[in-house]
């Protein structure tokens, strides 16, 4: 049996990109919008309960991983469907649930720096965006209102703003103050981070109650999740259909329909005038490649050959410091402060800009594990735990990554995931540009530890921040990009692609607020197109 759905607009994916788009379109008066979400609907209470019984430590492991919409699962290799083939390994994680991956995030919402939009022009590396910071700035303001962002209006973080953040900043923890005060003489500014966290009651959200669990789940709901826009969109009449996985987008010139399948096996065809692909940085290019046919042998929207290329993430390292004084990190939200001092400068012609984050996280479990592995036992153990937990703090530096066509994904049709979709081969590497950026992070953290008279316990190996970007990049030239500056596919005028997949260059800023700003900029363009203007 095949079910047919007809709508004006079909949105694929209900994460922040799809949910904000659907809500904005509905608020602009567009009617008959349907959102197809591969994964199930979840509740906050379910996830809180899962955390207390979950035996794994990945941010995703307490979320559903159903057969009909599997997510990457690095804890259980037999379940995983991404094969790393390059010299670097990136354990990308994302959720396939209604509301998307912003169920578990750090709520960090730094805007990009103006220079991030003209990287090639300014520093002769990477790529320029086909739009400027100034063009996006009003939409940053709107996105900050929509996501409910807190921040300090008086702090210059390098990204000029025409409106203050809608909420005051998160009060500094003892840990954040320690770094702020201790690093003044070192010339490093520790400033409040903008974050989609309610610091006053906001749009139905209570303010942060300090559950200290931003990842894997904000227990109070003070932190934004895309689910809030799902709910608001539904109130405006948007139909959000969960457990419906899109397997193929079909085009005959314009896109005509998508083929999907429900969890119970029912086939679904969804027809519409406009299609919005908002399926996450990894699933979006995967679906475009999966939609190859005789007319589009390289995949949909892929005349340029750029779909699946130029994958970027934010390579990062963390340093564990043992401070001379107790600061008890891990009380309150995790991402309160950081430094934007290293985001931009002439050095970017040589190495990555980067963001410094003071991690107000407790390392209780890891410290307990470590001390016991070192043979510390009762009656000494409790005091040793207290001492270490009160003074061990991590700093994290995440660097921008240049677009590199070799980094990206291809499909392995010979191997399928639990839903029968082709597995992903993912090639990933760091360039010298990023390696030098990481070296600068290490040098800076060493300098910081000396200044604070802290013991530098260790540096982690490089890891990535689960900010999958690129692989369907935006550009003015159809020969070298997938979508135009309004996120419209060059080859299919009724297909819009929204999400971090369209980023032509990564910057070092967490991508979510830029995704939301792009969605809010794109939605009026879709509304205009529907009206034939």
């Amino acid at each position, binding site marked *: 049996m095949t079910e047919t759905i007809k709508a004006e607009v079909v949105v694929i994916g209900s994460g922040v990109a799809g949910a904000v788009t659907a809500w904005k379109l509905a608020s602009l008066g567009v009617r008959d919008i349907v959102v197809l979400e591969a994964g199930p609907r979840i509740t906050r209470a379910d996830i*809180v309960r899962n*955390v*207390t*019984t*979950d*035996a*794994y430590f990945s941010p995703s492991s307490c979320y559903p991983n159903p057969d009909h919409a599997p997510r990457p699962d690095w804890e259980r290799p037999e379940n995983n469907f991404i094969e790393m083939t390059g010299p670097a390994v990136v354990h990308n994680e994302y959720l396939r649930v209604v509301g998307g991956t912003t169920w578990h995030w750090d709520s960090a919402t730094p805007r990009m720096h103006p220079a991030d939009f003209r990287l090639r022009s300014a520093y002769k590396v990477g790529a320029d965006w086909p739009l400027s910071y100034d063009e996006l700035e009003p939409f940053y303001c709107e996105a900050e209102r929509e996501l409910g962002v807190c921040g300090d209006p008086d702090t210059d973080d390098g990204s000029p703003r025409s409106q203050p953040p809608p909420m005051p900043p998160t*009060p*500094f*923890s*003892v840990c954040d103050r320690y770094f702020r005060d201790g690093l003044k003489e070192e010339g490093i500014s520790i400033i409040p981070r903008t974050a989609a966290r309610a*610091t006053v009651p906001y749009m139905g959200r209570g*303010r*942060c*109650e*300090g*559950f*200290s*669990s931003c990842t894997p*789940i904000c*227990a*109070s709901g003070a932190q934004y999740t895309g689910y809030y826009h799902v709910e608001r969109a539904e109130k405006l009449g948007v139909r959000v259909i969960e457990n419906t996985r899109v397997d193929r987008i079909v085009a005959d010139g314009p896109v005509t329909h998508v083929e999907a399948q429900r969890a119970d096996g029912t086939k679904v065809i969804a027809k519409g005038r406009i299609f919005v692909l908002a399926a996450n940085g990894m699933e979006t290019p995967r679906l475009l490649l999966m939609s190859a046919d005789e007319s589009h042998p390289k995949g949909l929207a892929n005349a340029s050959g750029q779909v699946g290329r130029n994958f970027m993430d934010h390579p990062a390292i963390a340093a564990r410091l043992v401070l001379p004084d*107790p*600061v*008890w990190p*891990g*009380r*309150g*939200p995790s991402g309160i402060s950081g430094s934007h001092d290293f985001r931009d400068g002439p050095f970017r012609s040589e190495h990555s800009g980067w963001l410094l984050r003071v991690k*107000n996280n*407790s390392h*209780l*479990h890891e410290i*307990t*594990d470590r001390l*016991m592995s070192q043979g510390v*036992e*009762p*009656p*000494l*153990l*409790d*005091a040793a*735990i*207290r001492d270490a*937990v*009160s003074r061990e703090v991590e700093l994290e530096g995440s660097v921008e990554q240049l677009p590199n066509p070799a980094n990206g994904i291809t499909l392995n049709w010979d191997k399928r995931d639990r839903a029968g979709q082709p597995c992903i081969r993912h090639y990933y590497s760091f360039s010298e540009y990023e390696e030098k950026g990481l070296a600068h992070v290490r040098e800076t953290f060493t300098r910081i530890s000396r200044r604070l008279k802290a013991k530098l316990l260790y540096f982690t190996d490089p890891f990535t921040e689960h900010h999958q970007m690129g692989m369907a990049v935006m550009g003015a030239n159809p020969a070298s990009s997938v979508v135009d500056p309004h996120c419209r596919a060059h080859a299919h005028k009724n297909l819009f692609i929204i999400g971090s997949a369209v980023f032509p260059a990564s910057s070092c800023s967490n991508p979510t607020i830029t995704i939301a700003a792009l969605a809010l900029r794109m939605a009026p363009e879709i509304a205009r197109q529907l009206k034939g203007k």
Partner: protein
Amino acid sequence: MSTRSFTRRQVVKTLVALGLGGIAAPLVRAGAQAAEKPAFRWNFDSHEPTPENFADLCAFITLTDDLDPGMMKEIYRLMMDEPWGPSHITRLHTKISAELKKDPAGKKRPAADKQAFGFDEGETWFAGHLLMAWYTGMYFNASRPRVRVAYEKALMYRAVEGRMPVPMLEPAGFGGWTKLPEEKE
């Protein structure tokens, strides 16, 4: 069955004697609240891997006399499910019994002190395994998937009680993170 009890006071005296007065202080405070209830029972007649002997063993190894019953039940189930579990419970119980008989006042350090109790390599590993499960609330070994035995009842949270809330269950309240825990008094 003869069962001997060691009081918290005896444990504290032992710690002070070992030069660990700083560690003993919290026990003194806790002891004042606990009104000198027996800290440890011990069955000298049987070393069978019974729930009671296992509970005594866990209390002895963790130096904690009010272990969570639910967690106890789960860890016991897991240990009894391991091919080496029952025999190791018996072996540890037997060796600790022998030492306690020699030293009835409990002057030995009442922890998983391998040398004091003559544990061999396997027994030392087992004691560490038990301790890890009690402290972290997680149990695993190479042959089975990880299991979460407990969340907030894990002893590591008790070690930081009053200073560090249990994530996701104990809200600090808005701004409650701006002062050191001691300053909140």
